[in-house]
């Protein structure tokens, strides 16, 4: 078992939090993991990505080879497509539908959606709205993690435990809100896919 997950978004959107949850859950499950991330200049409003690799056997490379990503999870629709060369033939695309508009030549949204929908395995949801309706718009990233959870080779318990571990210092209320976001994401994705 080796799973390659590519996380994408814009600096500050919370992809490193998703990565930290996956890392924590993988380590707690006694699995091997490698997770590379972006620091420094690129983080300032630029495109960022993180490669997360989880396996029951030794992992060598910190980077996912092209064409080997099982899924790309993105917090923004255009950033999802930036990493397509990494996607496996039958890999999954999971993204929030809301654009992050800090550039002048952002493409037409419909064009982006059409491109995403041309891939059979995709989950395109308004995660931002789901998070907002739950009273925590910051949890968009966790909604997406929930949406992707059924195809991630980590148990739901281990992921939720990791969310608890990571958000604990912010208090029980924040932990609960993030668990709710995770559950809702999972629920919506199940409806969308089936």
């Amino acid at each position: 078992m080796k799973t390659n997950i590519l996380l994408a978004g814009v600096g500050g959107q919370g992809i490193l939090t998703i990565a930290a949850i996956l890392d924590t859950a993988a380590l707690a499950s006694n699995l091997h993991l490698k997770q590379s991330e972006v620091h420094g200049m690129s983080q300032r409003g630029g495109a960022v990505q993180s490669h997360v690799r989880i396996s029951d056997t030794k992992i060598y490379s910190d980077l996912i080879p092209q064409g080997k990503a099982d899924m790309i999870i993105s917090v923004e629709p255009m950033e999802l497509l930036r990493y397509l060369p990494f996607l496996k033939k039958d890999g999954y695309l999971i993204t929030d539908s809301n654009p992050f508009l800090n550039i002048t030549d952002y493409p037409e949204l419909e064009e982006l959606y059409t491109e995403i929908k041309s891939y059979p395995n995709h989950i395109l949801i308004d995660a931002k709205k789901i998070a907002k309706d739950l009273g925590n718009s910051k949890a968009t990233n966790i909604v997406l993690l929930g949406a992707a959870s059924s195809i991630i080779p980590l148990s739901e318990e281990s992921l939720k435990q990791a969310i608890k571990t990571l958000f604990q210092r912010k208090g029980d209320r924040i932990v609960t809100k993030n668990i709710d976001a995770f559950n809702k994401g999972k629920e919506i994705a199940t409806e969308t896919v089936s």
Partner: protein
Amino acid sequence: MKKLLLGNEALAQGAIDAGLSGVYAYPGTPSTEITEYIQRSKLAKELTIHSQWSVNEKTAMESALGMSYAGKRAMAVMKHVGLNVAADVFMNMSVSGINGGLVVVVADDPSMHSSQNEQDSRFYGKFAMVPMLEPSNQQEAYDITKYAFDLSEKYSLPVLLRMVTRLSHSRAGVNVGNSIKQNNIHLPKNATQFSLIPMYARNRYNYLVNIQSDILENSENSYFNEFIKGPNTSLGIIASGIAYNYLMENFESGKCPYPILKISQYPIPKKPIKKLFNTCKKILVLEDGYPFIEEAISDFLGENRNVIGRLSGAIPRVGELNPDNIANALGFDIVIDENLPKVVSGRPPELCVGCGHRDLFDAINKLKTETESQQVFGDIGCYALGALPPYNSIDALIEMGASITMAKGAADAGIHPSIAIIGDSTFTHSGMTGLLNAVIEKTPITVIISDNSAIAMTGAQDSSASGRLIDICRGLGVEENHLKVITPLHKNLDQNIDLIREELNYNGVSVIISQRPCVQLPKEKKDKLKKIKNVSLN
């Protein structure tokens, strides 16, 4: 115990566990998290390990040398271009040698993710003739750092530990071991060692040269340099540091059919290379950065031997390695796909929403329309993003501190107005001396210190300049009438333009401190700043 650590954090934990007494550093991507980890570590605090930021890399390395002189283990940490700043002490302390173990950690940035060049620090290590280490993964980053301190004390030489961006910023589970006690203070047995006047320096230089064969032999027998047998001798592979991982990624079974020499300790181990050479028809060299090994062995192995790598074109000459470009070099049938759907546009980094630099650039751009010859010399920091659209405010930026001195040279050439924009921390890092130079010559330049009270690009670390800029400028001799403070806010735009224009017209040195805290600063830091905020000019 297994801990989840970045390569940088594993290295830092290794240093703490090796009995470190002090880390000295200036922040710089990709090296920053090493010092930050030690600053946050409870254990490091209990052990009273010194971990405050230094003013620049040169002062950092000199302080580390001082701690080593006192017999304790010290570490100096910087990014690759930081080693240029500290090169003076680095080259000389290889001659003086050390007392307590001294490890110089330098994080290189192949592919220039956050840097202005791709320089490979291994050349500095060879230049200084010191042992070098290059971990290939997070566990090795931990283990090799502990080993580095022992190696340093064994030869009484500083040891260079080279990291690369990808390993610095990649996380994995790391088995963490026991820590050893810090050294007690013990002064050097031979005090003359540290006085590099020629008569003593010659002795030490002889020692450095004479010990080269020993440190080569040590490297050739090092546990971190491994010869891995393989049945297919049509090719032999030399893989250094992280390159080994990308190589092995290409063999799903975890078994490479070709013999491999994995290198993580330098000087370049000659014996195993000769062995590989005598066994294999062709040699592929995989190394992140410059073709350091490839160049060296192409020479000593002779022309009729077939060596391929970055120089031969088997691997691209620029940019970092990855599993794909290595697959290509191995002759695997893969196509590196660089095509994205047409709908995807570029998204370069940009200044944060609400950032004070934005308001400063608005003012500069307005003034740019008024004169033709005006030139703006920028510097290294967040405000370097002013070189990009939508601002395009900066005409040149080269390295830390160059804004003021380049503006001076351009003014000497007759350009007026000649403007330097420099951050508060960069100013104290290496701008102050240039300003003194301009003051002495009364050069007509306008220096704008964009003071956000933080080393913002690397994560808003404390700036040595906070609360001191006015005093420093006064002390350097900037005239009181031409030392101004503005607040870069949209509502002050016209007023700021008028003030800057006035100073641009002055035929001497003007300094304008454009002061507003970084928007990324946490609230507690902003509150702390209020207490030490620059007093007004009166």
